[in-house]
């Protein structure tokens, strides 16, 4: 057995069933050895970035490890965006890269890049395997690190000669996941004390709570507390529950942002108080005592002052906090919340929001919904109603354009029986549009692509409109966009199009009913914003609730002409 076969044997012994990747010179022994391991499926994407995002989509949908693979140099550097994305969103990801032979490393050899140096700040850990005897152990350890504690990406770089060297050792069996740390009883007692006295409490949950949805729901109901789910935490609490206030932050709901600004106790579980959530930190929850539960001690007190730090697993903490719940009567608070909830405007007029709402309304609770990055992403996050966790596949921390399509493919391959819908913009879609070939090659039938086409880089345009006096610098795509239906057709992907509110329901129905993966282009008016919005640097209480009037702006009809 050589190192390359030992690699596949180790991956197989850890239950890795699917690897997304792209071959090249320095990883050829691994691809050669792949032919001897039919139990592992390799998915050939059309770009290494697609492989990384597909692995992320897999991991985000299942909570299990995603694996991607690339050759040295340009192959490896093409993984960088995906690794950074996985780092910021705490996604368990294993990246395997080939490298030039050991004796060439450091000589600027053909296709050599110092990928461990490059990825050092954007991986949880990384390795160069310098001895074939170490290879399976290193891979097993990398898998353990990626999955344990706060998950994250780990990269293992394997020089070509190590792939070819003879390996005589054992293949390591997977190790049990370390037990989740339980929060201290003192911290839980102090948190309960605060909740007992709280007249206006809110519970805010993030991506670290995704696997604690049942406990979070029980906790909220036990204490009769409203729940805010961050962009990463959407689905942790059922949207149909009257206690749900929506998403906080820059494009958060009126109810969520007002509740944070008025709360006297804020219980945050598994979230890291990103600046897109807090707005100006000094204006965030100004009256609240903050209880912060997190697995990662470094997150507690990093951004906001914390009155009761609770280090531990989200599910264990939520379960402990729910015990001995004694919620005081809070009729006034609930009345106030209902008033704010009523201020949620649904997009009534034809535009991007209208189109996104029409699509997400047709989703089943089991459906996966991915998004790319931009206005359509925020609209989807605002308008979709998630009842379950791990149905929302999205690039939160890094905000990676081009994420949507490959991630939806990865998520869709993880759950072939489930519809994997992706909402993208015309800009982001073109960053990884070549992954349509992956759909064709593997005859994937459950991926439904919706492009909200406003012919602009819409979010940048919105900021230019609001903060740069409408100087629309380099955001117009309309003259150069492809005919998206022809593009889809080139890859044998059926396409549908809607240009008006009247055409939309029929187009959506045909698109979803198509037995194959299909593309729907919705052509919407050029200028349309996402609101509510908290301008960067402002406090949540300084939110712009509704879209400002546009004096002199062309009407949708005129701009269509």
């Amino acid at each position, binding site marked *: 057995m050589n190192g390359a076969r030992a690699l596949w044997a180790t991956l197989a012994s850890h239950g890795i069933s699917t690897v997304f990747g792209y071959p090249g010179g320095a990883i050829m022994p691994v691809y050669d050895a792949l032919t001897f391991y039919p139990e592992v499926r390799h998915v050939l994407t059309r770009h290494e970035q697609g492989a990384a995002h597909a692995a992320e989509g897999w991991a985000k949908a299942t909570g299990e490890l995603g694996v991607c693979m690339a050759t040295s140099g340009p192959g490896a550097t093409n993984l960088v965006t995906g690794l950074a994305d996985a780092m910021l969103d705490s996604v368990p990801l294993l990246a395997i890269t080939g490298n030039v032979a050991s004796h060439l490393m450091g000589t600027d050899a053909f296709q050599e890049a110092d990928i461990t140096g490059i990825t*050092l*700040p954007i991986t*949880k850990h990384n390795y160069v395997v310098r001895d074939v005897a170490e290879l399976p152990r290193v891979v097993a350890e990398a898998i353990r690190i990626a999955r344990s504690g706060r998950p994250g990406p780990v990269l293992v770089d394997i020089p070509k000669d190590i792939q070819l060297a003879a390996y005589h050792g054992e293949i390591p069996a997977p190790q049990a996941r370390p037990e989740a740390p339980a929060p201290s009883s003192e911290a839980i007692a102090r948190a309960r004390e605060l909740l007992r006295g709280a007249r206006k409490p809110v519970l805010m949950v993030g991506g670290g709570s995704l696997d604690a949805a049942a406990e979070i729901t029980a906790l909220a109901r036990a204490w009769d507390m409203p729940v805010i789910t961050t962009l990463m935490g959407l689905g942790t609490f059922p949207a149909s529950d009257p206690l749900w206030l929506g998403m906080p932050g820059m494009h958060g709901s009126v109810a969520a942002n007002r509740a944070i600004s008025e709360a006297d106790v804020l219980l945050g579980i598994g979230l890291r108080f990103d600046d897109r959530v807090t707005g100006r930190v000094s204006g965030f929850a100004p009256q609240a005592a903050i209880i912060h539960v997190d697995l990662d001690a470094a997150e*507690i007190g990093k951004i906001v002052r914390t009155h009761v730090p609770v280090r531990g697993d989200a599910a264990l903490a939520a379960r402990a906090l729910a015990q001995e719940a004694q919620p005081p009567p809070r009729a006034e608070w609930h009345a106030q919340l209902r008033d704010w909830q009523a201020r949620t405007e649904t997009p009534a007029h034809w535009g991007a929001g209208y189109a996104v709402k029409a699509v997400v309304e047709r989703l089943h609770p089991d459906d996966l919904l991915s998004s790319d990055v931009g206005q359509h992403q925020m609209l989807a996050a605002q308008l979709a109603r998630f009842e379950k966790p791990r149905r929302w596949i999205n690039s939160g921390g890094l905000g990676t354009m081009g994420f949507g399509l490959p991630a939806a493919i990865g998520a869709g391959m993880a759950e072939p029986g489930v519809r994997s819908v992706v909402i993208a913009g015309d800009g982001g879609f073109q960053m990884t549009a070549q992954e349509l070939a992956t759909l064709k090659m593997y005859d994937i039938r459950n991926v439904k692509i919706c492009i909200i086409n406003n012919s602009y880089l819409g979010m940048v345009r919105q900021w230019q409109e609001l903060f740069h006096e409408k100087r629309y610098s380099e955001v117009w795509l309309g003259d150069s966009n492809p005919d998206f239906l022809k593009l889809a057709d080139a890859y044998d992907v059926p396409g549908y199009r809607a240009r008006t509110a009247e055409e939309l329901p029929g187009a959506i129905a045909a698109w979803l009913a198509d037995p194959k993966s299909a593309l729907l282009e919705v052509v919407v008016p050029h200028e349309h914003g996402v609101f509510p919005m908290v301008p960067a640097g402002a406090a949540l209480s300084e939110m712009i609730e509704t879209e400002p009037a546009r004096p002199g702006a062309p009407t949708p009809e005129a701009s269509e002409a």
Partner: protein
Amino acid sequence: MTPEQSIPDHLLSILVRDEPRVLTRITALFGRRGYNIKSLSVGTTEHPGVSRMTIVVSGDRGVVEQAIRQLEKLHDVVKIIDHSLEKYVDRELVLVKVAINPDTRVEVRQIAEDFRSRIVDVGRHALTFEVTGDEGKITAFVEQLRPFGILETMRTGRIALTRGSNADIPGHVYHSGETQALHPTLPAEPREERAREVPNMF
């Protein structure tokens, strides 16, 4: 008091796996997160495969706590000792080359003697001294010599050890017998223990 002086220094000892790039990993973390390293010394330890760094970081308590927590997450970090929470000894070594002439030679040597400094090199126009001691002593020595004309100095940066026997220190590297520091399944206890010791947080 200048703003620079108002920022306190914190002395950290960081025990790390002796792996390639570990120094880069540590310094990159400090660099990326904007923590200011004032001095850094690295050397081997009594345990093969474990290196020890003494880092002086300036910043308020919150900055240092955050730096420690971020360091704890690095896979290569075995143990962190925050010396502000323990009794410790620290030393720094400095080489000072000072200009001399026939009129000043005796006076310079007298000052060096007062500081228990050793002469390590004698030239016609310069003497080079070696001094070890805490930061205050070294600074005082350098200031005493400054009027004579300092030609070159090199300070090693501070190094520190906790006072008392190793048995007083919780953690894995000081366990009797073979070190577990390089064991692939190194348990996370010492890191959690450290976290609990940080006041007002856990």
